[in-house]
């Protein structure tokens, strides 16, 4: 039973030498969909995201407002399309920054070891001790709020976690013979990290990245609520859910669709990461 692949895929993964099960494919398809929405969203939105188009609030789905209206009477579909750019964009950049920083520091700590490793680990542990709320407030007060600041704050909050995870992996790979041989050859730390250790911890690091992406999407709205980052009339999906929470009592679409959007994005990211395409090693 070979599932049909999505239409625009020229060659099935099998011909390209990869096995890729259908769960992973669904995940990838949804991710690609939301990525496209993030890129072309603003062109597709029927109304401007800030414009109050209907007197009624938490309105039902009608042909005029496909996904109903929000608490102010603005079109939910337009706001979700606009929000996609922020949620997908900011979350992706932040998660990559956090994981890149965490993984590099983790590998350096594992390779150099000794006092450097101990101090760095303790510092980042201490950083975890500071509640993210205080950290967010301080950043707003010290640097003002803008999207880059929001991205850096999110990256800083999630870097210690990524560091701790990557360091544990790197320590195991560091004991392998091929690293010892490279060291015996006289290789320096940058080479050891880049070519010997990193390729071998990429798989689990990607899985961790998927999980962190989920957390960042949710914390994103918390920080915007603090006044850090996405300014009105724009908002990320988390903020849409937060501002329309009142609709829950009416079961109005204004709360349902932003939540569905978040859930579909985060679940598909994890479905894709858990079922990454693996190279077929069958020596036919």
């Amino acid at each position: 039973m070979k599932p049909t692949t999505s239409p625009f895929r020229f060659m099935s993964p099998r011909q390209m030498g990869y096995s890729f099960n259908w769960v992973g494919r669904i995940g990838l398809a949804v991710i690609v969909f939301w990525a496209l929405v993030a890129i072309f969203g603003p062109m597709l939105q029927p109304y401007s995201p800030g414009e109050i188009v209907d007197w009624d609030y938490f309105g039902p789905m009608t042909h005029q407002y496909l996904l109903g209206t929000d608490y102010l009477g603005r079109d939910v579909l337009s706001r979700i399309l606009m929000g996609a750019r922020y949620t997908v964009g900011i979350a992706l950049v932040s998660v990559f920054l956090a994981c890149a920083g965490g993984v590099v520091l983790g590998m350096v700590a594992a390779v150099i070891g000794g006092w450097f490793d101990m101090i760095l680990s303790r510092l980042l542990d201490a950083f975890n001790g500071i509640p993210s709320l205080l950290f967010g407030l301080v950043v707003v007060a010290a640097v003002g709020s803008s999207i880059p600041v929001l991205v850096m704050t999110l990256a800083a909050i999630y870097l210690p976690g990524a560091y701790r995870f990557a360091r544990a992996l790197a320590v195991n790979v560091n004991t392998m013979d091929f690293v010892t041989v490279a060291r015996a050859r006289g290789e320096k730390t940058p080479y050891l990290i880049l070519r010997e250790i990193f390729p071998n911890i990429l798989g689990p690091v990607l899985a961790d990245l998927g999980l962190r992406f989920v957390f960042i999407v949710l914390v994103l709205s918390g920080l915007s609520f603090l006044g850090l980052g996405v300014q009105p009339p724009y908002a990320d999906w988390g903020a849409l859910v937060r501002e329309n929470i009142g609709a829950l009592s009416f079961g109005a679409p204004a709360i349902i669709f932003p939540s569905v959007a978040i859930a579909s994005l985060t679940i598909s990211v994890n479905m894709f990461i858990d079922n990454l395409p693996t190279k077929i090693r069958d020596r036919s």
Partner: protein
Amino acid sequence: MTKTPTNWTGRDDAMVEDMIRRGATRRQLLKMLMASGVGVAAGGSLLMRAGAAHAETPVSGGHLRAAGWSSSTADTLDPAKASLSTDYVRCCAFYNRLTFLDEAGEVQMELAEKIETDDAKTWNVTLRSGVTFHDGKTLTSDDVLYSLNRHLDPAVGSKVNSIAKQMTEITKVDDLNLRIVLDQANADLPAILALHHFLIIADGTTDFAKANGTGAFICETFEPGVRSVGKKNPDYWKAEGPYLDSFEFIAISDDNARVNALLSGDIQLAAAINPRSVRLVESNNSVKTSVTTSGNYSNLNMRLDIDPGDKAGFVEGMKYLINREAIQKSLFRGLAEVANDQPVSPADRYHNPNLKAREFDPERAKALFDKAGLLGTEIPIVASDAATSSVDMATIVQQAGRDVGMNFKVERVPSDGYWSNYWLKAPVHFGNINPRPTPDILFSLLYASDAPWNESHYKSDKFDAMLSEARGALDEDKRTSIYWEMQEMVANEAGTAIPVYISNVDALSSKVGGLKPNPLGGMMGYAFAEYVWLKD
């Protein structure tokens, strides 16, 4: 936005019903119904339902649990330091004040038997006899002297220091009489003494871990930021009430949680609920709403002394750009009244009814902006959740600006430290003013040249002169005409745009009786504990 409201009236008859419950006169109600196109016949049935609300008899006993919207470790039992609704409710229950404002805004005597003056400058206050504090000490003029003088001592950090300054001389005549001399004649002194901060405490009190007042309830538990519990004061000096055996006041900051707590019966009174939850409360017959037009408002301040406020025409342009109707209907679901850019609300008897609010005219605004040379420049508007609904108002202004080529950037800043860091300082920002009993207090606090809260830095000697003239005037008609003209000056010259007066909506269980609106604020001027009762 030129869309006329198509389906608004059908779903918002709840708002009409509230107008009735607020004791709106028949004339005002009919005018409102006409404006929204509801046929007279349909309007008739609404009037009938309202009538049944009044004829009820009080019932004694029971424990009432009420929830406000914010409390923190800064909660206090010191009336001078009270800053949040939670503090006002607590203090009103445990203490009393010399005078109190009733439903119609008239001054009623409380601890004072009578307050007389002939020139509005020196006032003689006679205290009621036989009133005792909770610790048994009887009330004397020493207590009142101490309570009033302490507002001038900076160490107390009193919120009404700037108002108390006008009482230059407070002297004791005998145990039940004292004389207050003002630096300038002010006919509103009795109304000023009705402010919550002027509650009377025992002479020499400095430790406010417990409350020793003359109020209707004795303080049983007080945990700052958590809860306060009051027990009925058995030998309360008033003949009537309190009806409740005990009451508990907590704070639930999340709007939906507060409404849900009321709907699930955990609390019997939820203060200041979000206009959007009104429809939910109305559809449930075990709960009802109580709406008060109390003169609270969030205003858009444009400082006249710095760019862009100093550009001629900018302020006026903005006043035309604000779509007051959209704010009143979309933001507050009709639970607000369109305002005419001046602080004195319709609930106040000096309100100038023939000063029309500027209608929404984007084209005219565009011409003014063009003249001021500001078309297309990026203008930041600072808004925060600290000022009610200011972020949404800013978005509405931004949207209207976009249609006429203005580039407004809304900067949402944290409510943490908003009042000290952004309010009065940013070129264009939002403020929020709580109701005050008299126009004199409002104008001297907000628009006098030396006013501490002069949000738009409005300076006008003529205005200052009229202010002190009105203050001393005993002749009502003269006073009214001065205040009417002052309101016109503020509306046309000051840099503050006040789109609507926000109605305060409290939701309560249908078992609660006796809650009446009050100009001093929601929850019956925060003094509900003394007057409400629980039907079982």
